[in-house]
């Protein structure tokens, strides 16, 4: 299960597991963004390639406006997945 919440500073907070079953729900949120956002991964346990696809589509869309997603508090497992995907080069990750 994945929850997508708004934080106190307008950041997006992801909670739970971002798998293929959650991709349609997440698309509705991420592809509706019209400005760059900080995305807090501290409570995200897991992401699969379906989740990566949603984030990539959002990043491509935002980059056309000169904006992007900044990912913070990414756990080591997820950080590895981003690195193996080359996504560490196309997202700002803290």
């Amino acid at each position: 299960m994945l929850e997508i919440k708004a934080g106190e500073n307008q950041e997006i907070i992801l909670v739970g597991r971002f798998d293929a079953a959650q991709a349609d729900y997440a698309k509705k949120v991420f592809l509706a963004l019209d400005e760059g956002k900080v995305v807090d991964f501290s409570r995200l346990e897991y992401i699969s390639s379906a989740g990566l696809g949603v984030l990539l589509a959002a990043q491509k869309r935002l980059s056309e406006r000169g904006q992007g997603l900044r990912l913070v508090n990414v756990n080591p497992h997820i950080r590895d997945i981003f690195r193996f995907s080359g996504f560490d080069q196309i997202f700002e990750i803290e």
Partner: protein
Amino acid sequence: MKGSFRRDIGSLDDLVRFVEEFFSAEGLSPVDRFAVDFALEEIFTNFVKYNPGGTGDIDVSLRLSEGELVLAVADPDSGSFDPGRDAPEVDTGKPLEERVPGGLGVHLVRKVMDRVEYRHEESTSTVTLYKRLGENNHA
């Protein structure tokens, strides 16, 4: 440990519980869970996506063999789909504007697991994945 799962993305929560039960029963470190969950989801969803005409459940088994975890995912009603041969190469060095969503699953499974084998026999496709436990710091 063996299980059969409905050929549907909605089965993913059941797959997570299946892996959790196996790790708990065998007393395995949760540090290896991420890679196993990841590989299982990617192979399972590939069977669901690329074999839309398939009927019946998809079989999953987990076992330990000489310090390795062995995960097998079998589609008993499928044509031949060998992820090693049929999945396109992924260029992970491309810039953002040239990247397109999709196609990463098998590439990443090969990164998080140690070995991937494929077999097709009598209409059953089986992907068997191996991971040496306790050696990987992260994924």
